């Protein structure tokens, strides 16, 4: 329960942080929320010799709509989402997601950006960001770049971030009118990772036809999964019981679950089916103005 010793740095600017990261190399770890990193260090599963604490850097804690995007800063805490009027009124899918991450105490420290940067397929924001079609803003020694979320998750605990880059912001395209989304997660108890989780974000036209669909899957693969087949199936279709049922079956087929302590692969695959249908119904209700 005691971490190994390390050298600690607390830069005051993002440039300083990036420069430190470059100087110290691959073994340095960024500390933001620390709610994944510090527990791993306490078990000595992670033993970084250098820790770069970015919590002192000002102006990184924002959740704000600007220029067509919802912009989420690196230090926006999960609990900030829970009290954000923007999230409450306009992004219920993000509210769904944040409230099922860990527990309220962890959420006071944990950051949504950290939830993505960790590259853990068991984290919840990845599926939702995949469904929303988000963009990741990474800042490195050569400046900033935009990484589409679809290319962000490359392997288990691996993202497209270079070792000398910091995830500075998530940009979520503001959904068009008649959009709705939902995130549903089945877990063994509060605080657990998902046995399976499904994020759905749809945009409807006025006539009950789905114009755009995003479907993300949590913890049923080595990386957070985008259920492209289900998305393609839903696009252009009238959303009724039959199409929803079929979309759910397609999404279940796209999951790549394994047997583990949370359940068999078969069980998880069926959960994806059940949750996709439930999430689609919820998203549809919200797209039509409901809750």
């Amino acid at each position, binding site marked *: 329960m005691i971490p190994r010793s390390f050298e600690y740095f607390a830069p005051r600017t993002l440039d300083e942080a990036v420069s430190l990261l470059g100087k110290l190399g691959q073994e340095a770890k960024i500390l933001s929320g620390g*709610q994944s990193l510090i527990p791993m260090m306490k078990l000595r599963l992670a033993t970084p010799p250098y820790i770069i604490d970015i919590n002192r850097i000002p102006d990184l804690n924002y959740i704000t709509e600007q220029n067509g995007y919802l912009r989420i800063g690196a230090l926006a805490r999960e609990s900030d989402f829970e009290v954000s009027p923007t999230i409450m009124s306009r992004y219920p899918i993000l509210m769904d997601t944040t409230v099922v991450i860990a*527990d309220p*105490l962890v959420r006071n420290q944990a950051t949504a950006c950290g939830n993505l940067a960790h590259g853990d397929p068991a984290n919840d924001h990845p599926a939702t960001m995949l469904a929303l079609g988000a963009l990741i803003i990474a800042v490195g020694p050569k400046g900033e770049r935009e990484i589409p979320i679809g290319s962000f998750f490359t392997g288990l605990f691996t993202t497209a971030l270079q070792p000398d880059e910091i995830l500075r912001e998530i940009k979520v395209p503001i959904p068009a009118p008649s959009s709705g989304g939902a995130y549903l997660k089945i877990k063994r108890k509060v605080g657990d990772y998902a046995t399976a989780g499904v994020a759905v974000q749809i945009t409807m036209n006025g006539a009950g036809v789905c114009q755009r669909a995003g479907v993300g899957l949590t913890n049923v693969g080595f990386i957070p999964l985008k259920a492209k087949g289900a998305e393609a199936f839903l696009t252009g279709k009238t959303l009724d019981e039959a199409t929803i049922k079929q979309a759910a079956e397609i999404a279940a087929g796209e999951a790549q679950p394994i047997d583990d302590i949370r359940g068999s692969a078969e069980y998880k695959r069926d959960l994806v089916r059940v949750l996709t249908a439930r999430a689609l119904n919820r998203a549809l209700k919200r797209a039509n103005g409901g809750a």
Partner: protein
Amino acid sequence: MAKIGVKVKVNGVERAAEVEPRLLLVHFLRENLRLTGTHVGCDTSHCGACTVVLDGRAIKSCSVFAVQADGREILTVEGLEQDGKLHAIQEGFFQEHGLQCGFCTSGMLMTGYAFLKSNSNPTEDEIRHAISGNLCRCTGYVNIVKAYQYAAAKLREGGE
């Protein structure tokens, strides 16, 4: 490893120390400051026995380094009582038998202190979710919910 100087305001008092970067905040409070009311109950950040309030937010002090608290303010269970008067949340736990062995209690109190500042009339469901990061093996939570409700009512009435 070289030690780093930290200055933290704890329960209204400025405290300073030289600490290893790896020193967990919970150990800093318990061992450097001898405030042993905050407890360690697990090693995977599940139990919440270590909960303190850092700059107004309830956090697990086992999952924060002491150096991260430099220049910031912490409230621990020892800081709840003011001028010999128990805080409403403490009074609630006393009146409603919200504690048995007492080991999870400081965490429950600190979570409650922060929670009731932002939710003055919580439903039972909201309370249960608010304490879902704090494990208890003795009480079965029923009376902890009642303690929170008692405290909320007292705070609404203007009590402290």
